[in-house]
């Protein structure tokens, strides 16, 4: 549950915070969220990763489709990646990696503050 919750919250943060701040502020935001929601390690990793990765993926697909621009293909060729679709994937993967490690960092930070061992049977 917490993992899904984190995924959704991360996506919301990316959608609303990212347009006004650089990506590294978003990473800090995800870490904070993840510490607050506090899923387990894998949940934090996947929640942050999927939240940011899928949002970046979705945003780039959305921009590519609504603009019908040739730029993704031109950029793909320029960067030696072939087509714009590859760039969509690369954007998603980079978003995932950045979000995932931010999420995991948040969980591990909360671990530090946790006095007693975490109840593994909850959430």
């Amino acid at each position, binding site marked *: 549950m917490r993992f899904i919750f984190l995924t959704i919250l991360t996506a919301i943060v990316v959608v609303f915070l990212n347009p006004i701040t*650089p990506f590294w502020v978003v990473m800090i935001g995800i870490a904070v969220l993840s510490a607050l929601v506090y899923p387990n390690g894998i949940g934090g990793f996947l929640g942050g990763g999927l939240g940011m990765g899928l949002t970046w993926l979705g*945003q780039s697909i959305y921009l590519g489709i609504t603009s019908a621009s040739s730029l993704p293909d031109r950029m793909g060729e320029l960067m030696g990646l072939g087509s714009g679709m590859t760039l969509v994937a690369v954007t998603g993967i980079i978003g995932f990696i950045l979000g995932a490690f931010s999420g995991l960092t948040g969980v591990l930070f909360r671990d530090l503050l946790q006095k007693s061992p975490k109840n593994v049977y909850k959430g």
Partner: protein
Amino acid sequence: MKYFSFFLVLAITIALAMLVSRPIGQIPPLAPLLDPNHGFWQNTLSEDQLAEEEINIENLSAPVEVVFDKNLIPHIFAQNELDLYRAQGYVTAQHRLWQMEFQTMAAAGRVSEIVGPIALELDRMTRRKGLAFGAEVGLKYIEENDPETLRLVEAYTDGVNQYISQLSDAKLPVEYKILNYRPEPWSAYKSLLLLKYMSDMLVGDRDLEYSNLRKLLGDSKLNKLFPDFPTENDPVIEAEKVWDFTPIPVNKPDSVTYPDDALLLDPLSQPVEGTGSNNWAVAGKKTQNGNPILANDPHLSLNLPSLWYSMQLTTPTYSVKGATLPGALGVISGFNQDIAWGVTNATKDARDWYKITFQDESRKAYKFGDEWRATDFRIEAIKVKGQDTFIDTVVYTHHGPVVYDKSFRSERQDVNFALKWTVHMGSNEQRTFIQMNKAKDYADYNEALDFYTSPAQNFVFASKSGDIGMRIQGKFPLKWEGQGKFFMDGADPKMEWQGFIPNAHNPATLNPERGFVSSANQHPVDRSYPYYVFDNSYEHYRNRRLNRKLREMNQITVEDMKMLQFDDYNLQAAEGLPVLIKLLGTHKTESPDAEKYLNELKSWDYFADPNQKGQTLYAIWSAETFESIWREFMNGAPVVRPNSYQTVELLNKSPKDSIFDVKSQEGIQTAEYHVKAGFDSMLVAMKKWEAEEGDYTWANFKKTTIQHLVPNFKSFSASNVYTGGGSGMLNATGSRHGASWRMVVELGPEIQAFGVYPGGQSGNPGSRFYANFIPIWANGEYLSFNLRSIENQEDVLFKTILK
């Protein structure tokens, strides 16, 4: 353990964040580039998707309305000129900021700052030619002499800078994102620098090559191979023109001695072949509607973003429309409600070289007459991306900067030459365009031109009141015959320029009897013009084709003029091919390939249309033949070879001339030898081409490419554009050069105007307006360029109010 895993993961996270926000070699920082909210994905949006109804900009005296038509051409409606130019700066920066800045960085010799050490040699060269120095002198000149123009240039600058200060990361042009830098503030100096950049692009000299030629050939042979006037001279100003002024006397020194060293320096970079232009105007008596029609198509490197940006600029007193240069004020080639004007390059050896004799190694003084004059040292600090700043010291004499010296490209340490160039002298070209934009008649046009110095242009003119005119305007030195053709001795005061030709003596014509005026970079005048005229690069084909057509045409319509701009007739081939075929005789008649190609050539109508094969064959055959003729000639010190016109004339009239003899071959060779050798080379080249590419129709062979300003950004370029034409034809579209802007204006009661350029209004490669004019241009079609009123609601893409 908890601490360990936390700090480990934290470290990995921070390392990742740093890794993706830093450049790795030539790869830009990945996350800022790919972040869909800030990176290149934001540049996929076209301007209409980002349209704003209102934008706040400061220092306006009244709101300015900007109407973008369906082609994203802005029509600026302002209450006064200060507001107008502030808005022009703002709007131009919205669409072309990266290009404006990049071009001025190139002109200032600052490309290394952006791309690193690879551009250092280029930057040193640019600075040693003194372009930035020229712009500094120009700015000082305007500050001292023309505060009104300065105020307007500063308003434009303020407009650009307000855009830069409002610019979000998301909207930053994609080239900045890829090359990882940000725009710096614009300045009046940069606007002036841009006009110097145009001079550099358009002005060349061949003093070095001619010095070598003189040494190799001697004067008489030189004059035979490189005559000052061609046999069939069809100059810009009609040959019948009677010069109604008393020329200023120019004194040729009794004895002239030239520096006679063996010159092994590399020549300065020259305007690329294919740089040139056409313009003309026909009088009402030759047109169907009785109105003058004016046409202009400047030929330049074909680049994206295009050099040109279309605009209409309107105040309550005038409305002007046409092609602007991003970074410069006003319209450069265009029309208003009363007149139209256009430009072609009017090169006339504007650069000369003087040999400098330094007193000693310190180079603090140089010889001039009987004295030693002090030099100036200009320190050029060239910032280099990823490296230490490079310091270059350039010595300035009263002639100009010493371009090549012991620290720069010196094969010979004792040879130092100073470059004398009108670009280094204070001038105010910007004023010309500001005044021309609101000119009402021939007198206003002439007054505007009096401020114009460099690069010299043939300014064509037509007015609604029925006048047509042409004036060759630039700052032309007074020279004795032969002066400046070769390197000169800078220590000899007799070698100095003796002043400048007064504007009133510059060649000009108004309403000539023949009913048209025209220019195509040919000789400016007939031999009767009382001042010395010389340049190596005069055109010999486009001008004759153009004037022949204009002489025979009557009842001319705008459509006729459009067709003439798109005319693919190859006059050189029409004159040269029969000569080649005659000299070839029965050579290789047994080869089926040779027969096929010869038949294609013989049935060719000399039009270099995109689907023609004859043009491809002629292009290869003639090039190989000329190459064979001049191979030995070109072997050794840098020289230029006689032009194609002269070569064809030699082939035709004196095929047995000793010039055709190849010293390294036994026996005596004549023209036939080279024509056959050229034909054999063509067979080899065609065999290879047919095996590798197959299709050898002209468009596929010449592969017209409109290249992004950063040549490495291949995917931002448009390659293999299907279009005809080529060098020496009115449609001068070669593989990398051609008509960079085409305009036809009929000056009737309602002005009818048409224009197009190979690019698009947007400088953003992601925009749908980036290259949308290219297919229209390639087909010889046009966009309507009629003046718009503020009330007109047709074809509006969006409107923005600046206030």
